[in-house]
């Protein structure tokens, strides 16, 4: 087991290294340098050169790369070109917001997607099944920005039920402990703050979860149908097990295993896909931060945020593999 873990963790290194090289060169290939973008159209050459000097942009690329990597070894990701503050700090301040959104979206997607997928499979070809299939198809076909706008318009302005921007109301001051608005509200034992955080989460979570829930529902349905058609199910029924026992003990368990891999992969994707959602809902997360950094040619931030995303993706895959291993005895054996 330990060997397996160590093995996988070690494989993290070349992947991350490759990611680093790619993003470093990519960021530098993007035409236009950060000093220009920062200072805007009115700037003179003198002002730009002075800023470039200050930002060490005049050094050759290989030297910049080397100093960056040495910095990384010390846990220093450099400073943001725009704000001058340490990149690591900036990313970590915003990471909880993105995680909060992603985890809640994931939970919502699972809670909505799996039961629907299961029932859809059980009642295959019924009106429920057809309805579900259509809705989930529409769900994976809708551009996220369209859904976000429609929800905002409908729930935010026409009905006025839900807040349309931010992680918390600016008029509610909670002590920032973890950066997760829900948890901070709990720690502060402040019910209005908690409720406020919850309300703010609803719309962006729904937008982010829509695609994922639809994907999960489709996947679970197909997976269940496949599993249910297999011989061992017939055997179980023949043995006299009730319909529900068969479904839950045998059908669901097996199809869920495959679902976990998909969910894990999609979770990592979602971290990046949060960019559009975070922008439309003014959510103070890393996705939005990264997008602005690309616009501003803020190299250190682009590099740092990509590394963080890549690391999270690899770690998530690892977790998923471990989970899969624990649940599926056949794989568990292989890992030992």
């Amino acid at each position, binding site marked *: 087991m330990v060997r397996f873990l160590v093995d996988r963790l070690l494989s993290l290194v070349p992947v991350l290294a490759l990611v680093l090289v790619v993003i470093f060169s990519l960021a530098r290939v993007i035409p236009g340098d950060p000093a220009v973008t920062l200072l805007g159209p009115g700037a003179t050459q003198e002002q730009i050169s002075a800023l470039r000097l200050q930002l060490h942009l005049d050094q050759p690329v290989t030297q910049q790369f080397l100093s960056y990597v040495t910095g990384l070894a010390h846990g220093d990701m450099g400073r943001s070109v725009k704000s001058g503050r340490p990149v690591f700090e900036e990313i970590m301040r915003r990471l909880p917001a993105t995680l909060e959104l992603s985890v809640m979206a994931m939970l919502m997607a699972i809670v909505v997607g799996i039961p629907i997928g299961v029932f859809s499979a059980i009642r295959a070809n019924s009106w429920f099944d057809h309805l579900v299939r259509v809705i989930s198809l529409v769900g994976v*076909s809708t551009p996220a920005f369209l859904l976000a706008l429609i929800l905002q318009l409908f729930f935010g302005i026409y009905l006025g039920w839900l807040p349309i921007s931010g992680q918390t109301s600016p008029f509610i001051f909670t002590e920032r402990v973890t950066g997760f608005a829900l948890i901070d509200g709990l720690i502060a034992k402040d019910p209005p703050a908690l409720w406020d955080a919850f309300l703010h989460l609803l719309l962006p979570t729904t937008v982010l979860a829509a695609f994922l829930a639809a994907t999960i529902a489709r996947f679970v349905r197909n997976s269940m149908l496949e599993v249910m058609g297999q011989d061992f199910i017939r055997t179980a029924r023949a043995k006299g097990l009730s319909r529900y026992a068969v479904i839950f003990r045998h059908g669901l368990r097996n199809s869920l295993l495959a679902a976990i891999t998909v969910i894990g992969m999609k979770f990592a994707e979602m971290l990046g896909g949060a960019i*559009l959602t975070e922008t439309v809902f003014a959510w103070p997360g890393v996705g939005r931060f990264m997008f602005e950094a690309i616009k501003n040619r803020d190299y250190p931030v682009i590099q740092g945020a990509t590394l963080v995303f*890549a690391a999270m993706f690899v770690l998530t895959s690892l977790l998923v593999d471990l989970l899969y291993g624990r649940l599926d005895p056949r794989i568990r054996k292989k890992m030992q």
Partner: protein
Amino acid sequence: MDHLLYFLKRNTLASVGLLLLALLLLMVLGVPWFTEMSPVAVNMSQQLLPPSWMHPLGTDYFGRDVWVRVIYGGRYTLAIGAGVVMVAFLMGVSFGIVAGFVGGWVDTVIMRSVDALLSFPTLVLAIALGAAFGPSLTNAMLAVAITLAPQFARVARAQALAISVKPYVEAARCLGVSTPRILWHYVLRNGMGPLLVQASLALGSAILQTASLGFLGLGAQPPAPEWGADVSANLPYLRASAWVALSPGVAILLAVLSFNLLGDALADWFNPSKRHAP
């Protein structure tokens, strides 16, 4: 042919998908015969008109007919989808089958690179690439193709792995058939099924991603009627004249939907248990 008809009869969603797609193709390819209105002619006196008989979806900020713009935009969309998927397919599949068939360190290197590519948040990679090569439609398409290629590589590799151990491949090797020939005639031919499914699903994804890039301003340039770019260009008028921004958005939805339906249908078609009568 009978198989196909029987299949379609049993599978309503597949038929709907095919119908939708056919309709889309018809409208998009045949539009010059339906109307002479131009999608780019500016007419400031007809700004932001609500839907009417003359303009079924109203007009936009420049007085251009929205319906016509959406249809012409469909051409872009189909071209984008086809182009992106073709490039992604070629890139991904070539690397994938080589990795799966040859194995060893070639496999490891290729798959590690694929993994690295996969760990980039897709949109971020597309944005960075689009920004790197300059904001134009071709560059955005290239960017999306690069982000979609890994999926093809993975599927192709799995297929190659499965097929390379089949007896007929061994037989071919014994006969002295060259590796490229084996890859082409045996591996690719027989492994096509899942790849086609992946391709049609990727079409939907390609369109969504390119539309998102267009929405962010990194895709088609004005006055090109690309759907994503049109949604973002008309956002400022969303409250007063919602149809101008929503129409291209809904069009994206319908197009992607039809491709996803097609993908599902293909998946069912290639699944022997679903294709034939029980």
